[in-house]
């Protein structure tokens, strides 16, 4: 029996993202990151675990259901989750039960007939662009996560940068 595969769908708006703009504005104007923060962008992340089927084809099918291509773009990654180097990616997800992720799983399984979907997890990826070097940037990213991006009583976060070699 082959091991389960994981399809990571990174989804972002093609149109301006007002939520990311508000986050940047708050960090710059209210929380003192004017001198080091260059920009903030945001993605939604769906991590879909499957127990059978062609992951490449399934990724396209899932994207048809989960991505509105009139306003969004996406990138599908199979069994890996990589990000570009020019920003610090901060993954924020609920550590309490995520009702929306459960609804997506049930919609894919029951209503759309994808019986090979085992699990769905959902997260927000905050892409923080800094005018500072990587180690400092990651320290600042942790601060930003804890001061603004999460409420620790329901959310957890993770810095997804590649290790510095």
């Amino acid at each position, binding site marked *: 029996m082959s091991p389960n595969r994981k399809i990571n769908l990174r989804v972002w708006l093609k149109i301006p993202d*007002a*939520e990311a703009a*508000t*986050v940047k504005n*708050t960090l710059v104007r*209210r*929380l*003192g*990151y004017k*001198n*080091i923060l260059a920009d903030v962008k945001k993605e939604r992340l769906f991590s879909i675990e499957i127990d059978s089927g062609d992951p490449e084809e399934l990724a396209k099918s899932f994207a048809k259901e989960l991505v509105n291509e009139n306003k969004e773009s996406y990138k599908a990654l199979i069994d890996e989750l990589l990000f570009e180097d020019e920003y610090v990616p901060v993954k924020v997800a*609920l550590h*309490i*039960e995520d*009702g*929306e992720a*459960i*609804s997506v799983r049930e919609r894919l399984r029951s209503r759309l007939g994808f019986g090979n979907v085992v699990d769905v997890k959902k997260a927000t990826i905050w892409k923080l662009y800094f005018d*500072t070097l990587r180690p*400092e940037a990651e*320290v*600042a990213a*942790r*601060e930003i996560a*804890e*001061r*603004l*991006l*999460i*409420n*620790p*009583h*329901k*959310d957890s976060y993770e810095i997804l940068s590649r290790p510095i070699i």
Partner: protein
Amino acid sequence: MKIAVMQFPGTNCEFETLVAVKAVDMEGEIFRWNRSAGELSDFDGFVIPGGFSYQDRIRAGVIASKEPVMSALKEEADKGKPILGICNGFQILVESGLLPGRSISCDKESEKGSNMGVGSGSNKASSNVDMALAQNVMISKGKIVRRGYYCDWVNLRHESPSKRCSGSFAIERGALLKIPIAHGEGNLVTTTPGLIKKLNDDQQVIFRYCDKNGRIINEFPFNVNGSTESIAAICNEQGNVLGMMPHPERAFFAWQLPAFDPRKQRADEAGPGRRVFESMKRYIEVNA
């Protein structure tokens, strides 16, 4: 006796709230978020109304909680002035650390933050926020039956003795109020050890959701959002800051009640929500 009804971008209940404030013979005015925060000291009390400040971006209430007026409101709260947060107002009070308020005024420097450099102030936000109002999860017979935004008339039981809290100062323990809710994030959760016990022991739980006879049944449709121990409202230790998910301003007059309530036809009668505003007024009179 002058009340500031706070208005952030996305607030949507400020005018009904102002009507309620004036109808119990207090003066009041809308106070925009970008007005000079120093002017807040001219007021005797504050209401943060419901709505969707900053479109609930990131999570409900968090952006508004970082505004300079919230630092000024913390200073006014320290003076003992009453603050009533309704729905989104409750969410803002939680995100700013004013409720449940154990860490009150411990994080003013990080809120100002204008000269902050890399590495300073780490973990300040999580250190002064003791709970969250998470996404609604409605549970019945051990199963999740609904999630997300929900609006309905609910029954509330007043849990504390009168005079414990500014917003229920004139309400007796055990009183039942029928008041509407309308929110997507009212599920009180916390990872702070012992917080719920402390809220109970210190009588900081002001209202719980209940059935029409006042029984607490910790599942949907009585507990409308999955909140821990059916908690609908809490106050801070001092009792001057109250946050509640239901909207008393939408049940201020009897004619606002739902069609199936016989009181609706009695045009001159007060609605149950009036008691919250009357309490605030009485609290200010007593503490003046």
